[in-house]
């Protein structure tokens, strides 16, 4: 085929510029370490990489949320731990105080310590975090959760809000618990029903907390256990009425100290010598705050016992208080356990997130990172190619028939 002079030159120059362009691209790739220099180099890869980077950043945020959650839960956990320690000390004191070797004066000293411990518990329950937000107020973090009215009643002024954080794309976890559940909603008695001795009792009967056998039949007004001894020094009998004592007799029998009395799923036992018309109530368990329990305990210890009857009342009330303390301890323990479980869940999720992030980084790298060995080889080839194009151009351009004329 016939070639014109200008075409020959053009082809030669084109060859050189082409080599230069390829070389320049290889150089840019080597300098940045990336295979993809602009979106048009590989649009589908760029699209995938963009999506992967978003997932990576979002997952990193989840990890940071998880860390925030862990530190909040740790604070909560150590606070509850401290509370448990206090309550265990209270229980020891209560057992001590219940001992007949104590005098009114020594019981007063114990009561003083218990009041001191009560205010510590209130202080712990009103803990603030490092931002000045109350830990146990639910969502009302600027409102102090617990305070005592002039009448002596302890109230909760927070709400039931529970904060969750996002630790995974489909995973939220609670990082707080409202103080209401921890400190206020403790069921008294044995958790199902609560036994109390009537303060007007004149005998020396003391009732235990009782337990549930089968299925307890709740009565909104409670049951009343009455002891009867119509004949002085005669046999003592008992009868149990429902509907707060106004209902029918659902159980009755001869009284024997320490022997179980069963009715409607409840099993209770009385010890000692109850007097005629001494009454005991068995009601559905209700909410009794930890503070009220400690307050009751201190008040009981402060009451001076004079007669045998007052001693019996004292022991009844101490028994009730110790039972209620056990319920409080159980309740707080259960929240600790829940926190433990949540911390485990967060740890697992963090591991999953970590694995996912590693995978994503690997995918991104495989898509966008340069294969250095291949690129360096390409660079050498390009250099050779450019040299060859340049040299051949100069030599061919020199050839002309006019040189020989």
């Amino acid at each position: 085929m016939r070639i014109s002079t200008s075409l020959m030159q053009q082809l030669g120059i084109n060859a050189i510029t082409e080599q230069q362009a390829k070389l320049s691209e290889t150089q840019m790739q080597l300098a940045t370490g990336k295979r993809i220099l602009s979106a048009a180099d590989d649009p589908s890869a760029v699209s995938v990489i963009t999506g992967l980077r978003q997932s990576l950043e979002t997952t990193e945020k989840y990890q940071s949320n998880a860390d925030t959650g862990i530190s909040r839960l740790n604070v909560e956990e150590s606070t509850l731990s401290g509370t448990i320690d206090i309550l265990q000390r209270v229980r020891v004191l209560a057992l001590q105080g219940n001992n007949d070797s104590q005098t009114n004066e020594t019981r007063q000293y114990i009561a003083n310590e218990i009041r001191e411990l009560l205010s510590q518990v209130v202080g712990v329950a009103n803990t603030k975090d490092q931002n000045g937000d109350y830990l146990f107020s639910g969502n009302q973090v600027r409102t102090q959760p617990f305070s005592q009215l002039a009448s002596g009643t302890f109230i909760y002024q927070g709400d039931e809000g529970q904060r969750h954080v996002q630790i995974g794309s489909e995973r939220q976890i609670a990082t707080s618990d409202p103080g209401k559940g921890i400190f206020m909603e403790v069921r008294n008695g044995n958790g199902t029903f609560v036994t109390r001795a009537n303060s007007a009792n004149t005998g020396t009967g003391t009732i235990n907390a009782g337990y549930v056998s089968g299925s307890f039949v709740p009565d909104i007004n409670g049951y009343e256990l009455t002891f009867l001894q119509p004949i002085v020094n005669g046999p003592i009998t008992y009868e149990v009425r429902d509907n707060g004592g106004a209902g029918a007799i659902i159980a009755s029998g001869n009284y024997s100290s320490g022997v179980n009395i069963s009715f409607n799923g409840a099993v209770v036992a009385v010890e000692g010598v109850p007097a005629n018309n001494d009454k005991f109530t068995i009601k559905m368990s209700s909410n009794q705050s930890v503070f009220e329990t400690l307050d009751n305990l201190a008040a009981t210890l402060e009451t001076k016992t004079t007669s045998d009857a007052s001693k019996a009342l004292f022991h009844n009330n101490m028994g009730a208080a110790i039972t209620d303390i056990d319920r409080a301890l159980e309740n707080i323990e259960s929240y600790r356990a829940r926190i433990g479980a949540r911390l485990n869940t967060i740890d697992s999720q963090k591991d999953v997130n970590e694995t996912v992030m590693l995978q994503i980084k690997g995918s991104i790298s495989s898509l966008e990172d340069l294969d250095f060995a291949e690129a360096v080889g390409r660079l050498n080839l390009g250099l050779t190619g450019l040299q060859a194009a340049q040299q051949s151009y100069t030599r061919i351009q020199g050839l002309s028939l006019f040189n020989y004329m």
Partner: protein
Amino acid sequence: MSTSGDVYGIGTSGLLAFQRALSVTSHNIANVNTEGYSRQIAEITTREPINVGGRQVGTGVNINSVRRMFDELVNRQVTNYTSNSSLYETYHTLASQVDELLANESIGLDGSLQRFFDALQVLSTDPSSNPAREGVLSEAQSLVDRFHTLDEHLNDINNHLNNQMRQFTSELNTLAASFADLNQQIVANGGSKMDFPPNDLMDKRNLVLQQIASMVSVSTVEMDDGSINIFVGSGQPMVLGNQAFTLQAVNSTTNSSQLELAYNSGSTQVIVTDLIDGGKLGGVLRFRDEVVDPVIAQLDRLAAGFAMSFNDQHRIGMDLEGDINNNFFGDLTAGGYVLPAAGNTGTANITVSISDSSELTADDYQMNYNGLNYTLVNRSDNSTVATFPPAGAFPTTYTVAGIGIDITINVSNPNAGDSFYIDPDHDAAKNIDTAINRLADISAAIPIRAQRSLANLGDATISQGTVANINNPNLMNTVTITFSSISPDLFDVFDVTAGIPLATNVPYTSGSSITYNGVTIEITGAPQLNDVFTIEKNTSGFGDNRNALFLAGLQTTAILENGTGTYQELYGSLISDVGNKTAQAQTSKIAQGALLENAQSRYQSVSGVNLDEEAANIMKFQQAYQAAAQIMVTANSMFQSLIDVFRR
């Protein structure tokens, strides 16, 4: 004296012919680097023989014509490939700019969206924290700034394209004028069929044609008189003989930021934007049509959809001051763009607003009145979306299903043929803005909360509540749910704030939803007689992060495009689309470039000057000239001999 048959004459003819041939060769050599030059060849033929005694005798040599070496077919290929190659080069250069713009870390939207939602995640872990709120507001501002920047850049590109259109049409008109002028000169000099055609003029004219082809695709027809007619578009003549017609860039009737191409024929002007293709002008038009317009439309849709869906969630939340039903971003839903066509004769008035962010599309629409009904047409594929009657009470609002907009006919007095251009999310990317600038105004909480009474003897719990209808006027009234009966479990609902009962003896099912006053809660578990549950305004709930969690969660919710795309996915597919078009343009550019190079090689092999060849020709004609000169010397000595004979 000398007849054509004698030696002198023959010698002279040789001298003249070879002299001429040498000058043609010199012309070729001199023009070796001239653009558009086709090498010329002197055609040497024998002269007419004379009849001497019934026998033919040669009379020497003649230059019959000087032809230029030119192949029309190859030239046509070069012309076409020039248009194509130029088209894709222009398209690719422009598309790469947009490609880099969108994917750029500091201008593109993706990083900004990510950081905004990162700030919301931080807010969700500490909703009352001032630094966290500060972070959200500042990232929100960055985000709207990014939208604005992108919109400005795209506007700049539109302006640049407008300038290019003006510049290219002006160049084209100048080239067409000079082509027409050359046509005239060529015809005056005898046209192409003559023996000595005006070769250089024709080369010049062909060069102008190539320049025209690089601007726009053309087709040519050669006339008998030697002039060439040029046609563009769907057959509009650009040059007819010595007459040139003009193209002009004029304002658009539908888009104030773009120009259209108009064709001037005498006193009439016709819009030909959709008909022009090829060359730089075609590249600019195609780029605008395939890249710029869709990008602007998608970006506007993203801005409008994002602002609206985010606001929808923000409004059901409560801020630190107890306020509800507030937007986070400025409202972009009302006041969509409606442009009545310039030729409307009726007095109808239409407004449009966005009603559903998920259904909103990137398309724009045309509302036409045909004398009977209004018809709403999708401009991207001319499909009919809906029809509305003109009669009725006005204003009437129609919700158009499937595309997420409401059309309100305020006044209806149209005439047949009236039409309205509708763009519901017009300029959304330019107008998106934050509507709040106080930290306390971010609604991270939910307006209501619920709790159970401490006196409850049952174990049932109540959920914290969700908002079913933020516009319910009694949303934040205190409401109590009291169990008035157990087995069967029945409850009463009482609105304490309004002092009225809402429901009595409602049967209870553990876990099922209960909705009153626009609030939905669930009670789960076993209640006891007289148990009370309270739903109330979330006063002082500064630590409530429920709405912050929802807002942060919008990032990974497929909320737009009928529930199939997240914000980032939509932006990602926009980048991907442009990236693909750029990559395709590059491939086409390379392919067309290769085709053009091939065609040019063939052209050169026919028309190009080869210096070695011309050098050989010089030697050839030089020798021949010397030989012819020798004939003269011989003829002269022959004559001298004759004279010498007669002198004796």
